[in-house]
């Protein structure tokens, strides 16, 4: 338990991925095997069943510390976490224990179905043998989630580093079905419970942004044009009767998208499809913000399925009849794809349409309508091209439409990292809302070094307040902010959030009273929904 408590602390204190991975690797090197299995379970959302309600924990803590309820609430609002508040309120432990993490979990498991008196005795005893930070973990095991910023991907990378096994294989293993009470660590990471050969994805082929006019690419007849969709790039793998959905982040997301599970009966074995996971209704693509409601959830309820139905727009086929098909020219792959997918008319799996145009001018004209169908522009793929691994210049281009823009004023500045560590390079921007300024975005790229120096000197001269590394500055500098989309957001004061905001240019010609208003953005939001 001590080791695990220490791991949690290390993970919480660092916001550098490398430090977090190092802490995880170190943990997996030395921890008990059974504990390791539970750590993987906890971090991937396989929580043990709660044997005790958290209201009871609070009640018992209040009772033994004789804290008035209102004072408990005051404390809770300062600490911000129930498990931690209880851990801090309790008097120092009188006994010690060397129980390991898995032992505590097993003991808690055994409490299920017992009466409240038995549970209370166990909990009070436990509290009296654990140090404050262990108590916090213990309470979390019963009542909460570990929100410590460890993604599945990070966990898998750490496991791969520690075990020298392939990370895709480990990802498949831990995303599969397993019982943490029974499986051993070695069985788990070696994927004894799953056939990892079945799930194998291919590296995605990625495109560069088109820098010149499309005419420079030669005749349009050598190219296939498609809409560029704004969703989650995904790969669907069907082998030996099993179906897997991978996201571009190399995460296995099969469980998140039940709408696509019917493919297990439709697709022949030995097929791998490349495409885009999108929010889709009546064959129309919905906004990215709708899709977002479905992302990174450990469970999905009926309402979410109804509010944000998803679909898969298929781009390409990488494996067919168990053969690696990537060296075939795009034109051939497309033919097979049409045969295979073209018939799925009423399903959420849709062949991403090819745009047929006679000339570049015609295509350029069409491109301007991208937004009306929630597309972000056009993809150009050479008909003779193979399916490359990763990003390669020449065969695939993305030709995106111009972003949305808004004029906003800078109100906070923070120093950057790396080469820009000495300068204020990370800015927070606000728009007007009546008399007030309300923040809408944080952005850090898009200025030249010379401009950065200029802004930096403004910040040092006009800092009003300091909060840690952040400076509040006089709202004076106006910037044009480009962004790709806009979504409702309860987390932001403005009630909306911009997607991919970045600085387009410094509007030295504008004053702070000429910036956009929150109402302008609300209008835009309405028009995209």
């Amino acid at each position, binding site marked *: 338990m001590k080791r695990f408590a220490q791991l949690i602390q290390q993970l*919480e*204190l*660092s*916001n550098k991925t490398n430090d977090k991975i190092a802490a995880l690797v170190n943990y997996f090197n030395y921890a008990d095997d059974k504990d390791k299995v539970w750590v993987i379970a906890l971090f991937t959302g396989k929580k043990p069943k709660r044997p005790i309600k958290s209201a009871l924990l609070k009640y018992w803590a209040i009772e033994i*510390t004789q*804290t*008035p309820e*209102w*004072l408990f609430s*005051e*404390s809770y609002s*300062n*600490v*911000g*976490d129930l498990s*931690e*508040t209880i851990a*801090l*309120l309790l008097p120092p432990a009188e006994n010690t224990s060397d129980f390991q993490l898995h032992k505590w979990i097993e003991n808690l498991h055994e409490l299920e179905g017992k009466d409240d008196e038995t549970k209370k005795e166990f909990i009070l005893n436990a509290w009296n043998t654990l140090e404050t930070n262990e108590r*916090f973990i213990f309470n979390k095991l019963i009542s909460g989630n570990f929100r410590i910023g460890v993604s599945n991907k990070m966990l898998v990378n750490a496991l791969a580093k520690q075990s020298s096994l392939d990370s895709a294989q480990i990802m498949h293993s831990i995303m599969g079905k397993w019982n943490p009470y029974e499986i051993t660590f070695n069985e788990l990471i070696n994927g004894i419970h799953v056939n990892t050969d079945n799930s194998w994805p291919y590296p995605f082929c990625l495109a560069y942004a088109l820098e010149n006019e499309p005419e420079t690419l030669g005749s349009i007849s050598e190219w296939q044009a498609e809409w560029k969709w704004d969703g989650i790039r995904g790969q669907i793998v069907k082998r030996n009767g099993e179906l897997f959905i991978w996201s571009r982040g190399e995460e296995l997301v099969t469980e998140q998208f039940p709408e696509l599970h019917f493919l297990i009966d439709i697709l022949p074995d030995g097929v791998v499809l490349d495409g885009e996971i999108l929010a889709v209704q009546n064959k129309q693509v919905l906004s990215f913000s709708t899709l977002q409601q479905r992302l990174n959830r450990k469970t999905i309820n009926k309402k979410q399925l109804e509010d944000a139905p998803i679909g898969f727009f298929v781009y390409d086929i990488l494996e067919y009849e168990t053969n690696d098909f990537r060296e075939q020219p795009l034109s051939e792959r497309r033919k097979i794809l049409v045969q295979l997918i073209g018939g799925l008319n009423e399903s959420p799996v849709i062949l991403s349409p090819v745009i047929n145009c006679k000339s570049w001018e015609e295509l350029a004209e069409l491109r301007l309508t991208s937004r009306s169908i929630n597309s972000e522009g056009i993809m150009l793929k050479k008909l003779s091209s193979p399916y490359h691994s990763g990003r390669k210049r020449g065969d695939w281009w993305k030709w995106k439409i111009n972003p949305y823009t808004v004029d906003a004023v800078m109100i906070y500045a923070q*120093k950057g990292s790396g080469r820009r*560590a*000495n300068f204020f390079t990370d800015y927070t921007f606000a728009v007007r809302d009546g008399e007030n300024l309300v923040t809408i975005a944080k952005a850090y790229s898009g200025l030249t070094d010379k401009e950065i120096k200029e802004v930096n*000197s403004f910040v*040092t*001269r006009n*800092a009003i307040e*300091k909060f*840690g*590394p952040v400076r509040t500055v006089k709202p004076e500098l106006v910037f044009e902010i480009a962004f790709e989309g806009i979504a409702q957001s309860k987390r932001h004061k403005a009630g909306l959030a911009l997607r991919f905001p970045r600085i387009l240019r410094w509007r030295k010609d504008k004053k702070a009273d000429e910036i956009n208003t929150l109402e302008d953005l609300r209008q835009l939001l309405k028009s995209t929904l």
Partner: protein
Amino acid sequence: MALIEFTKKGIYCKQGDFYIDPWWPVNYAVTTHGHSDHVRFGNKYYLCHTLTKPIIKRRISEDLNVETLDYGESIVRNGVNISFFPAGHIIGSAQVRLEYKGEICVVSGDYKIEDDGISTAFEPVKCHSFVSESTFGLPVYKWQKQDIVFDKIKSWVSDNITQQKTSILIAYSLGKAQRLIKNLTGNIPIYVHNSIANLNEVIINAGVNLPETIRITPEITKDELQKGIVIVPPVMRDSRWIKNLSHPVTGICSGWMQVRAHRRWQSADAGFALSDHADWTGLMDAITATGAEKVYVTHGFTAAFSRFLNDNGIESAEVTTKFGQEDDEENKVDLAEQNETK
């Protein structure tokens, strides 16, 4: 009639015609300790502890008119007997005891109960009314013994040294810095920022026994610093100088580090719950020991702490003061200085 009243300028004793830690200029300012939220520029006369005198002269101005008292000593002003008792907060910090016609009031300033080895240890003083801070006046703030915390800091430092990282502790120049120096001294050299070295000089000249430290100068190599302990004031935290050290890792020593949310917000590499203020238990013990009939609660969790005292049979009132804003003050001053030098 009460011995003290809370006015716009600060805590005022009408019978004696003087203020305690006023925040606007007055004729006669009794000063509990040298932190900037308790002692300001512009008073005609200052009365403070002997050790506080050179500190405030250094920090505010050499020209201050300062009278001093040792702990246990007293003077009479307009019939009010003023005496000082150790507050245990920082070097020279004093509780101010006022006595007039048998009525006793104690203004404690900032205080902590645990003996930190460098500030004279807190002494409870019997009184009728007591003015207490409440910086950590919630029951979730209960400190571990300082030996345990210092063991943690020491093992953090030695781990850093083996991993080729440079250990940087963030601490106020006055108070926390000396406490760290006193308790961390050993085989590992301690390097201190100029502002700390300057105050150390003052304190050593005043006769305090402070372990040896090394003032950071451009001649000291990164390699040397990596093998030592570096102590700098909060304003240096995000400085280029720190970023340029070899694998710098920062540790914050503050009572707020008790709580995860505060630790994360600070984005330091390590947080150690080490405070110069009394914790919940300390506040309660101190108040009980005074036997006071009336307790005035100033800066901190005033509402909650005062309500708890009232519910437990100790008459209490919240008082709004300008204490507890030291961090902001120091930062603003330093910010201004930085701007000037650029």
